[in-house]
């Protein structure tokens, strides 16, 4: 039986890849490596980084000053990835990450973004009425907390360092990491004891 005809789109993709390779812009192997890295990444990576920062002051300092180096220190391949910035939540400041222009997201350490992150509703509302958006997710922050919306508009990717929940003294990194959800890493939630 004859193979089904190849869609035109695949032929177009072949020509595009050949042109990119010929111009020395990117190779198929580099694309495959990036895909593999993204497939491997998940919020567990970010959670491990946060748990380490909660227990290791030197690592916390590295995380806040050079997120890329902090990710690499945890064995994450950041080859070709944009710089990673990490923003620290405090008792008086809560960060909420959004990309109003498209869907920039710290994929290297969180994996693929959830669909709501890319939705027009989240992108337009998070920047304009962040407290209402957070309240709909069950997070009501007091007025004494500054809500700082982080619009990810350019070359950095941003992750949130949530506050360590009370009552977790003496917990090891693995147990702490289990409290750090994807949502807490972009600021639509906080880390809570299970």
């Amino acid at each position, binding site marked *: 039986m004859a193979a089904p005809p190849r869609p035109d789109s695949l032929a177009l993709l072949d020509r595009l890849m050949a042109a990119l390779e010929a111009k020395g812009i990117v190779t198929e192997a580099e694309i495959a490596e990036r895909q593999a890295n993204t497939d491997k990444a998940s919020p567990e990576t970010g959670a491990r980084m946060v748990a380490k920062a909660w227990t290791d002051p030197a690592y916390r300092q590295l995380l806040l000053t050079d997120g890329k180096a902090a990710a690499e220190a945890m064995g994450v391949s950041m080859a070709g990835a944009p*710089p990673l*910035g990490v923003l620290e939540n405090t008792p008086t400041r809560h960060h909420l990450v959004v990309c*109003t*222009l498209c869907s920039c997201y710290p994929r290297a350490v969180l994996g693929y973004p959830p669909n709501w992150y890319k939705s027009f509703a989240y992108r337009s509302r998070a*920047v*304009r*009425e*962040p*407290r209402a958006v957070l309240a709909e997710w069950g997070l009501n922050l007091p*007025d004494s907390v*500054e*809500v*700082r*919306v*982080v*619009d*990810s*508009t*350019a*070359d*950095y990717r941003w992750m949130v360092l949530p506050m360590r929940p009370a009552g977790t003294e003496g917990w090891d990194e693995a147990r702490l990491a289990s409290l750090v959800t994807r949502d807490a890493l972009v600021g639509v939630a906080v880390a809570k004891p299970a």
Partner: protein
Amino acid sequence: MSDAPRFAPGAAVRVKDDWPERRGPCHIRTPHYIRGRRGTIVRPLGAFANPEDLAFARPAPKRTLYHVLFEQEPIWHEGKPADTIMVEVFEHWLEEA
């Protein structure tokens, strides 16, 4: 990067009230809601190839990128006074306020 950042942390700046999209095809990373708005430099983030050129395959000189802090209330006329928005803005979009 050869050029030192023009603005230091804490400097008062204003985003240019410019609308290149009205003049023709363009690719800009400056959201509309901060154009013409006053903000404060948080810190320079480094220099990156200008996306406005990159998008059209033109030679793209590096430009300093800043984290700039804006108050939410003057932008939206609603919200809590202390709440803020932090945006990455390229130097050529900023002027002294």
